[in-house]
């Protein structure tokens, strides 16, 4: 071992140097980037998710006009778009990690990954378009 320093005080979330040490030990591909993306989106989703859930809970007691007015307001539009982007980015990494565990054929893995990616992009795009339509058209 060229570098025996312990990693305990420099996790990958904080220290880019870990990638350098890991690289020669195995096939990293996009692993570290995805690992970081999963954690960073997770952190963002704590406040965004609580905000969204409590808003929807409040909307459950109101009508269509209130919901449209809520989604059209600038702060809501921004936060909902960020929530969808963080959530779907998080979902993409998570679903990929499930696929990596259960799909053992390279071609099949690539095909399913591409389908999941396409679905996520469509869902994100459609949500953002819908929010923007309300925001711009109010």
């Amino acid at each position: 071992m060229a570098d025996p320093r312990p990693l305990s005080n420099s996790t990958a979330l904080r220290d880019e140097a870990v990638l350098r040490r890991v690289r020669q030990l195995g096939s990293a591909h996009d692993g570290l980037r995805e690992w970081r993306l999963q954690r960073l989106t997770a952190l963002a989703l704590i406040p965004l998710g609580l905000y969204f859930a409590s808003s929807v809970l409040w909307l459950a007691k109101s009508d269509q006009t209130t919901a449209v007015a809520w989604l059209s307001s600038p702060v809501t539009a921004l936060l909902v778009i960020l929530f969808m982007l963080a959530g779907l980015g998080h979902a993409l990494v998570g679903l990929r990690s499930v696929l990596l565990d259960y799909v053992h054929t390279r071609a099949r893995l690539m095909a399913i990954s591409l389908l999941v990616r396409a679905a996520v992009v469509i869902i994100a795009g459609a949500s953002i378009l819908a929010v923007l339509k309300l925001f711009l058209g109010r």
Partner: protein
Amino acid sequence: MERPLSPFMFPTWYRFQITSALSILHRLTGIALAVGSILLAWWFISLAAGGELFAKTHAFITSPIGMLLLFGWSIAFFYHLCNGIRHLVWDAGHGFELRHAYRSGYAVLAVTVVLTVLTWTYVLFA
């Protein structure tokens, strides 16, 4: 190569433990929430479109099947949120001891139940 691969490990090779069950539940709820994002996007679209599309979507959401789906997603959301925080604490290097992992696991289950019950008490009775 005859070594067992991941989908077939649980009933045959592993004994049931709360820690591994919670880990699998984290994945299952994550998948459920990803599927739920389809309905969420659909709800945004129906709000933007208005009219008959919103009426139909609203009728579906408030139907028994829609409410059952929302109930399931609320459990999945609270569980994945709480257990996700548990995972982030592990990522920061804390709580790895077995008794701590068990304690935080039961705490996650308890908080999930409390938040779900509070949410649906508010929706149905408040």
